[in-house]
């Protein structure tokens, strides 16, 4: 479900307007607060949620990870390099904090210099792999994963 702005916490600074990749966060012309002009086009990418310095924007939690009406709030701490979530159920039975790393090195310190990196060979450019896919995606050597190599079979119908 799309983003929504708490008008009392928003001060109209425009950080969300700047960062939204869909260009759907804008400032209301009368009350001078941010709002989502096209909720249908929102991807819930959380860019505005993370960028807002006053934590004024939230995304309603989907029913696949939290029941309706829960408070799902997130705080991204760049300097500590972690993202923290807190889910509070609307009947108060759960108040759950989660924490995960978002970077392992200081920001901007490990940007590869593509000028010095070697060009992909003719064979690599004609193969099915993306740039550096074998090195960065796979955990072992070997061909790409398919259903057959993993001894799985596609079955018709819906199974859950």
């Amino acid at each position, binding site marked *: 479900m799309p983003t929504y702005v708490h008008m*009392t916490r928003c*001060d*109209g*600074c*425009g*950080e969300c*307007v*700047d*960062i939204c990749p869909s260009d759907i966060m*804008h*400032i209301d*012309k*009368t*009350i*001078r607060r941010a709002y989502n002009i096209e909720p249908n086009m929102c991807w819930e990418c959380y860019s505005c949620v*993370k*960028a807002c*310095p*006053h*934590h004024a924007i939230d995304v309603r939690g989907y029913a696949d990870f939290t029941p309706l009406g829960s*408070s799902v*709030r*997130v*705080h991204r*701490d*760049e*300097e*500590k*390099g*972690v993202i*923290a*979530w*807190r889910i*509070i159920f609307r009947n*108060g039975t759960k*108040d759950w*904090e*989660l*924490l*995960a*790393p978002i*970077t*392992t*090195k*200081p*920001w*901007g*310190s490990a940007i590869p210099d593509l000028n010095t990196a070697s060009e992909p060979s003719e064979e690599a450019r004609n193969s099915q792999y993306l740039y550096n896919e074998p090195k960065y995606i796979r955990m072992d050597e070997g061909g790409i994963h398919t259903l057959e190599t993993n001894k799985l079979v596609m079955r018709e119908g819906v199974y859950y």
Partner: protein
Amino acid sequence: MITTNPFAQLNAQAPDLFTPGLMQAFIILMVLLVIGGTIFDVLHKKSAKYFFENTKKGQKNAKREVSSAERKGLMVKTLTNEVLTSSEFSNQKRRMSHLLTMYGFIIFVATTAIMIFAYPTVADGTPAILPLLWHLGAIMLCVGGYWFWFAIRVDVAAEGNPWYKISYRADMFILSLLATCTFALLWSFTSGMGIFFALFIASTVFLFGGVIWSKFAHMFFKPAAAYEKRVVQADGSNEGLPTVPDLSSSEVHEKFPDIPTYMGKNPPNMGPGIRREPAKHY
């Protein structure tokens, strides 16, 4: 020129029209307009009602009791940080502009009231510091206000509109504020020319009379909201936001094993990420 009381000069130019009583009555009328408009604004928007209901709702998630001594400390901190230094602004340009306009406005209005009530005629002998401060307040208002208008206003800074694109309802406050301080200075520097005085009075009435839809009420509810934010941080409810614990503590390593696995036992300061660049990508 900047040490002469412009209101005393006004009285000297037309003593029968601009009596001290008239000038003082005008100030009182402006004050009444502000008080009445603010009360109407708060009642109409139901902002006070919402604020207290929100506070009660937040207290349900409180993890600890905040003592009254601690509350007093938080009130002092709110006063020294959010009120006196406008620390709520994370954008430093907006903060600087707000400080200039806020203090400029306070100095300008206070010296106006003092000069009109205590030294309304030339015979009263205004101490030079008062007109100096009056002009200083107006200049601070102009600097902060014009900087805001041309560069910082969100329509210009974040939406990429040109500075001359005016939104009628939203921009009337800043425009009337700019008009007031500009015409005040022009009036003073042209030794009391009538047209600038008339425009100064007109813009002042528009500014104080338009408080219903403008920003005056924020000087009451912003400090209240800032104090409330500190209280919920102290009592653990934190508006439903998580708190980031100490990443090198063993409890965090046990509860969230990803942290020591990928970041090490003592993660360093990672520096600014998206904040390395100012927001300027419209």
